[in-house]
């Protein structure tokens, strides 16, 4: 393992030189004068460059190889989007600038919201929430205020066990009580159970479509009808919208509130390369609850409008992560209507192709066909003393990022695989071959899998110790 930048401190060199102070020191209370070194790394420029190039080369990312992390939609982030978003016309903007000076930016926000409405069939979108879970919370707040205005005291949100794990958390954060609806044998919502759970205390049915098993709720029309006739709203977690683009519009099937993840479906980067964006869309009768400000168009001028009587208020400073909007808008414009549909088609084809190949060596609890992702199981390897976690670690040795494991919770030894549409057949074949090889190793040499990974810069970590006794702070004295 290489040294941290702090451990390189001892080199005694520095990349910066502060000139000798030739002014008298004034107005500085001796109390606040530093007596010890700052502990900041002081290394020469070449060392700094080498350090970060070394870190970058150890990093694994979508530009390096396949990243089949189920539920996360790790698709390629087109360079042209970065280029457009990096243009000084966008990066040079300040949110406090006069509306007159930022007409182009406002137009982009307005057009992107309109494009998302067209894609999803919702009446209006707000781009303010900055993450998927933030969108969920915003959606729950809209539902809460909707019932408050109607003077209905509904407290329960029904969440299928095949929903995203953040859903119940968003429900609780908003003051509702989540109740789990178990899936049926086919991995879909059991509408008989749903019917029993629905009552006049149900505020929202919150489902993920397609669900976390990569399955489309074939009874969605019935589910929506049942919820509505019980007086409840239907929230759709649209994080898996990548499978529906151009094929299904949630607004058309009666969804009341939904969120999208621009950093999944619309190809903007995730995590550290993000930030994220989780726009929320609503049907016509909920538009007055959306967060403010809204971006409105009057004649050919664009402007902010905060004049919305029932709004839930602001959910983020300014108007969300603007730079992400630019990338998502560029992506939508580049693909056009037919290209958008092809994204979903290819994501589904890739996932089904891979599922078929993987199923020769791993269990499938729900044989499909699947949508954009599928959940395999490593339970057939348990007889060799090998667990899914060992398979995942071994994949790293072959230079492939591991899929999501142990989620969803309803599949034992789960391996949740999402190849996404941007991977070509050769890459999928390679992944399937490696998975086959690992299944063979599990049988012939299980210990090899227990030791994995052996080729990575860091070997297997003690995850238990990391969780039980984490150390969050770098002890500075070590570097000095």
């Amino acid at each position: 393992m290489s040294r941290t930048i702090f451990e390189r401190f001892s080199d005694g060199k520095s990349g910066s030189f502060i000139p000798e102070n030739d002014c008298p020191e004034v107005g500085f209370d001796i109390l606040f004068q530093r007596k010890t070194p700052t502990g900041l790394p002081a290394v020469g420029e070449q060392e700094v460059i080498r350090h970060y190039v070394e870190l970058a080369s150890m990093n694994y990312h979508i530009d390096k190889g396949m990243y089949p992390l189920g539920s996360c939609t790790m698709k390629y982030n087109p360079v042209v989007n970065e280029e457009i978003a990096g243009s000084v016309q966008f990066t040079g903007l300040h949110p406090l600038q006069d509306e007159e000076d930022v007409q182009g930016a406002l137009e982009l926000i307005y057009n992107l919201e309109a494009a998302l409405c067209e894609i999803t069939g919702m009446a209006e979108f707000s781009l303010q929430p900055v993450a998927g879970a933030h969108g969920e919370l915003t959606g729950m707040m809209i539902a809460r205020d909707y019932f408050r205005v109607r003077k209905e005291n509904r407290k329960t949100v029904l969440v299928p066990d095949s929903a995203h794990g953040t859903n119940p958390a968003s429900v609780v954060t908003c003051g509702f009580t989540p109740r789990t609806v178990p899936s049926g044998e086919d991995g879909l919502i059991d509408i008989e159970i749903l019917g029993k759970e629905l009552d006049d205390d149900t505020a929202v049915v919150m489902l993920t479509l397609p669900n976390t098993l990569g399955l489309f709720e074939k009874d969605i029309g019935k589910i929506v009808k049942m919820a509505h006739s019980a007086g409840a709203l239907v929230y759709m977690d649209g994080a898996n919208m990548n499978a529906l683009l151009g094929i299904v519009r949630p607004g058309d099937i009666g969804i009341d509130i939904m969120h999208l993840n621009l950093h999944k479906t619309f190809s903007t980067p995730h995590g550290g390369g993000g930030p994220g964006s989780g726009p929320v869309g609503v049907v016509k009768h909920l538009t007055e609850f959306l967060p403010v400000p809204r971006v409105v168009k009057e004649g050919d001028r664009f402007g902010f409008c905060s004049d919305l009587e029932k709004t839930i208020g602001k959910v983020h400073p300014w108007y969300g992560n603007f730079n992400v909007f630019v990338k998502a808008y560029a992506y939508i414009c580049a693909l056009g209507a037919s290209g958008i549909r092809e994204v979903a088609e290819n994501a589904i084809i890739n996932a089904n192709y891979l599922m078929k190949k993987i199923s020769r060596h791993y269990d499938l609890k729900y044989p499909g066909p699947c949508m954009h992702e599928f959940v395999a199981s490593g339970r057939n390897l348990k007889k060799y003393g090998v667990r899914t976690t060992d398979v995942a670690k071994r994949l790293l040795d072959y230079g492939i990022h591991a899929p999501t494991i142990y989620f969803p919770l309803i599949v034992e030894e789960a391996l949740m695989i999402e190849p996404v549409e941007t991977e070509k057949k050769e890459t999928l074949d390679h992944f399937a071959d490696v998975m086959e090889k690992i299944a063979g190793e599990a049988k012939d040499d299980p210990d090899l899998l227990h030791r994995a990974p052996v080729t990575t810069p860091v070997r297997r970590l003690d995850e238990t110790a990391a969780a039980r006794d984490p150390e969050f702070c770098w002890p500075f004295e070590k570097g000095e």
Partner: protein
Amino acid sequence: MVPEDCLYTEDHEWVYIEDEIATIGISEYAAGELGDIVYVELPDVGADVQQTDSIGTIEAVKTVAELFSPISGKVIEINDSLIDDPEIINRSPYEDGWFVKIEMNDKGELDNLLDFGKYQEFLGENH
């Protein structure tokens, strides 16, 4: 507690009955499936719970599971030592790794639970 003397739920909790008091924990199978447990959340002493209510959280490295109450009643004691040292559950699921003691309301509810033999059968069929 001897595993053979306990009753079980399909969620892998065990119950050991002594007069009106039910001691509750998770089975060795469950502890093994969860792997190293790193954190537990227990109910408050005095809390009234219903059968199948979630009365605690068990966090392992790879997943988080809920502890469902196998019976209704009042929580009269919790195993505090699990808070600082949750690995007790992995080491001794039937003895030192018990979670809570509940004073039962309705012994009739025990009919909904599996005896050791049935639980073994259940494990064989489903796992």
